[in-house]
């Protein structure tokens, strides 16, 4: 059977040639594959190593002597920022609370105008606010300082977005880095990207198990997996992983790889948002920067890397605690921590931050507003990838006061009015009067809900909230109208078109005769408002709306009674112009944008333009104060102290579908809307629904009382309210009323001796 020798030799030669050809082809193929992978790795690493969503910060809390921030509230602010209460000051991010003072070790922070280094300071004060601040190192008095701002969210792609907070290896706690290597990859600094022993062990295990299991991976391999590969488990993928790991090691230093790992590794899931890197994990789980974490906290983070869904600290705390303790034990064995440190750390609970959202994504409704403003100027990718730092106008204290009101008051309202529970929806906005900064936004009853944002997107009929603009249009004609002008509260018909006659009615279906102009507004009478509007003209009222910052009011008489749809934020805009004495400032939610390196990129300076005359606006505000003192919003003083002068207006729409209140103090504007998404009746007027919420909010915010400071073209005079004529000290009842200068009533009231000058005719008529 043996083949002839020549044949055997020929065959051998052919075989050799074939083998050479095949192996050459294979080599070329492998080389090509390697080259492709190599390019992939280098481009990924040299360009954007990781996607960095823009980070959104709240306004920093300013601190200065004289600030009326009670120390208890300052302490709450510190808690929100994740500062630790300790018996004696530790590193940055800790504070000591004693009676009448707070010692604070602040964190350093890069603001728009430069870095503010970490300091140790003492804040003295009490319930009234801050009385003094001094530097604990130099003992010098501090004029003005600010806390680091709260991170309130980030802008990441809406679907499957990765979120992270960048950390540098050099700034990472040594225990984290050493501890991570001790658990995940002890030979990291000596291997070439893969561990032969680990692979061999995994291969053996896989053989005996009869199927593929997760093999032991080096840090480099884990990084490659996170960067490029899906989680499928095939031999091909494993080979690719090994090859890429080795290539990565050729091109980059160990420290670069480790730093990439710290920022890339998957650490958990928050809804659609993937939490990547230890920086974000630190704020997600502990609401603190990585540099402030203690041994047991670092051990937990290192522990859950193994499988963040399997070891979810919020869902499986016992399992995670066992894993954490195992990590601590390894650290003890590798002498990273002492026996005492081990025992102390092991005894402590996980200490997760109370907020399930973990210090990020706290105020989604506000972040939506910020994102919208940014999208007008930046491409989507710049927002989601480049790590911009966005400094906003949000005031956490104001935001939380607003959230608390809606959370508490809506269920209470449903209960007390015997409404179906859970059907009412609500929205609210708070702005700063001068400067037009949006301080708080709530877009839903579920205040942290990131979906439909009623404050921005729910345009509803505003009802009587429109009236002040009709009255302002009238008061801008001082030769025709003043606050005491008598307006007939009588039926009126308006011909809208040939076959369309509009005959409005008062809310109470009654007629009130002739009422002073201010009282018609205070009592929100419809008929005098329509009469006034018709007298001044629709176009005048439209232009007043435009001056206030709303440009879409239709040219219809029905706008006098608020048949125009506005979102709560738009209402805040027009009331903001009133609160700022006729100076319009477009509402803004952003102050500054910095690059991820902390370099100033863009500032949003506030813009202001006088659009409405100060005098008539002052008169309108005066009338809006009467709304609360004598009119439809009297109930406000059930909540706010009588010394607090505020201005505002109720709004109610047909069939009680919408309950509004919009109003202002000396420095803040607040708008509240309550209604149902299905447009059914709420059974609430503006006064019974939105007003009590607004009033309690103003109380909680410790609103600043409006000043009696008439502008130069306004004069005040004593009036007899019965006659609307000038009064003096002899009159039984008097009120001080502002008038446009030059248009004051000249005649004296009877009580002031005026009318007696011409008594003849009335006496005759009286006694005839």
């Amino acid at each position, binding site marked *: 059977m043996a083949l002839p020798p020549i044949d055997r030799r020929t065959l051998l030669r052919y075989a050799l040639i074939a083998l050479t050809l095949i192996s050459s082809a294979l080599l070329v193929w492998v080389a090509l594959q390697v080259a492709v992978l190599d390019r992939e790795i280098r481009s990924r690493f040299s360009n954007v190593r990781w996607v960095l969503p823009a980070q959104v910060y709240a306004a920093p809390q*300013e601190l*200065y*002597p*004289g600030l009326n921030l009670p120390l208890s509230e300052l302490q709450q602010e510190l808690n929100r920022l994740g500062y630790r209460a300790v018996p004696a000051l530790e590193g940055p991010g800790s504070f000591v609370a004693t009676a009448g003072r707070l010692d604070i070790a602040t964190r350093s922070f890069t603001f728009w*105008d430069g870095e503010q280094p970490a300091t140790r300071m003492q804040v003295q004060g009490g319930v009234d606010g801050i009385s003094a601040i001094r530097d604990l190192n130099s003992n010098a008095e501090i*004029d*003005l300082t600010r806390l680091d701002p709260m991170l309130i969210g980030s802008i990441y792609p809406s679907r499957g977005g990765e979120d992270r907070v960048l950390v540098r290896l050099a700034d990472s706690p040594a225990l984290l880095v050493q501890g991570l290597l001790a658990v995940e990859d002890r030979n990291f600094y000596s291997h070439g990207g893969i561990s032969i022993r680990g692979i061999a062990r995994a291969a053996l295990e896989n053989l005996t198990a009869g199927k593929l299991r997760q093999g032991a991976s080096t840090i480099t391999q884990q990084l490659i997996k996170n960067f490029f590969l899906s989680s499928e488990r095939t031999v091909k993928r494993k080979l690719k992983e090994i090859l890429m790991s080795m290539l990565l090691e050729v091109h980059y230093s160990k420290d670069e790889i480790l730093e990439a790992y710290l920022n890339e590794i998957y650490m958990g899931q928050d809804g659609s948002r993937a939490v990547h890197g230890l920086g974000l994990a630190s704020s997600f789980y502990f609401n603190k920067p990585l540099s402030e974490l203690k041994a047991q906290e670092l051990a937990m983070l290192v522990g859950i890397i193994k499988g963040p869904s399997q070891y979810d600290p919020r869902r499986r705390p016992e399992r995670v605690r066992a894993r954490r303790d195992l990590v601590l034990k390894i650290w003890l064995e590798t002498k990273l921590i002492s026996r005492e440190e081990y025992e102390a750390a092991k005894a402590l609970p996980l200490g997760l931050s109370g907020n399930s959202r973990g210090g990020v994504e706290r105020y989604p409704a506000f972040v939506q507003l910020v994102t919208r403003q940014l999208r007008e100027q930046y491409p989507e990718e710049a927002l989601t990838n480049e790590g911009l730092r966005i400094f906003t106008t949000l005031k956490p204290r104001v935001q939380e006061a607003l959230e608390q009101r809606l959370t508490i008051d809506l269920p209470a309202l449903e209960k007390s009015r015997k409404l179906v529970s859970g059907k009412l929806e609500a929205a609210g906005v708070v702005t*700063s*009067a*001068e*400067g037009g900064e949006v301080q708080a936004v709530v877009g839903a009853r579920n205040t942290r809900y990131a979906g439909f944002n009623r404050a921005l997107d729910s345009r509803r009929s505003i009802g009587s909230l429109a009236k002040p603009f009709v009255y302002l249009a009238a008061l801008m004609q001082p030769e*025709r*109208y*003043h606050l*005491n*002008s*008598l*307006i*007939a509260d009588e039926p009126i018909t308006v011909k809208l078109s040939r076959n369309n006659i509009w005959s409005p009615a008062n809310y109470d279906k009654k007629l009130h*005769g*002739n*009422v*002073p102009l201010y009282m018609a507004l205070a009592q929100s009478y419809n008929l*005098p408002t329509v009469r006034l509007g018709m007298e001044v003209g629709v176009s005048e009222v439209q232009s007043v709306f435009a001056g206030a910052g709303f440009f879409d009011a239709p040219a219809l008489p029905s706008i006098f009674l608020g048949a125009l749809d506005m979102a709560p934020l738009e209402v805040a805009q027009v009331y903001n112009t009133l609160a700022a004495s006729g*100076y319009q400032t477009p509402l803004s939610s952003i*102050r*500054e944008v910095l690059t991820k390196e902390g370099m100033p990129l863009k*500032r949003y*300076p*506030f*813009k*202001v*333009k*006088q659009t409405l005359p*100060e005098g008539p606006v002052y008169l309108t505000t005066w009338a809006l104060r009467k709304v609360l003192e004598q009119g439809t919003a009297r109930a406000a003083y059930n909540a706010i102290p009588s010394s607090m002068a505020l201005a505002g207006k109720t709004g109610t729409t047909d069939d009680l579908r919408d309950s509004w209140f919009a109003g202002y103090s*000396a*420095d803040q504007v607040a708008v509240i809307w309550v209604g149902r998404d299905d447009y059914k009746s709420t059974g609430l007027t503006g006064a019974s629904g939105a007003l009590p919420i607004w009033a309690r909010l103003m109380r909680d915010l410790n609103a600043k009382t409006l*000043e009696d400071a008439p*502008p*130069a073209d306004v004069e005040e005079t004593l009036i007899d309210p*019965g*006659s*609307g*004529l000038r009064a003096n000290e002899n009159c*039984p009842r008097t009120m001080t009323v502002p008038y446009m200068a*030059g*248009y*004051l*009533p*000249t*005649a004296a009231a*009877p*009580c002031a001796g005026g*009318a007696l000058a*011409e*008594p003849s*005719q*009335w006496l005759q*008529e*009286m006694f005839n």
Partner: protein
Amino acid sequence: MIAMTSLRAFVTALLLLTLAACATTAPVAPKPGVVLPPPVQPVKPPPTPPPPETKPPLSPNLPKGIETSGAAAPVISLVKAARASLAAGRTDQAGASLERALRIEPRNAWVWQGLSQLHIVTQQAEQAESEAKKSISLGKRNPYLDVENWRLLAEARTLRGDVAGAAQAQARHEELQRLIEP
């Protein structure tokens, strides 16, 4: 007592109604059920008064600058910082300091004036004009403050090409200058 009061009110009302019928300008008391003349009661329009040019003795208590105005210490230091930034040409920095000051004291006329000065430098005339006006209205007629505000108004209006308005503001500025300079 109530009867007395209502009687008095009634008589007063009647008295006034009658007066309204014969007099030309007297407003009318509200009294339900009585037919009234048209609701709008124009008051005798006097000539629009420009602020009268008086020279009252200046109160020695009037602050001549923000330092003595009673503003909070941090506001004063921020305004000073803004001035230094502006002098160094760092307008963004100056704006940031002034806005920070305004958040602490939103109705401080000196801070509003600082913003107006800044926006004259950055040639934002409309904004500078609004801010100077705001400073005037919040400034409680302090000539030491307003002398600069009217100068800023004159500059802003010149920038906008409003020659007449600028001349008017300049005149007011000079008047105030005479007033405060002995």
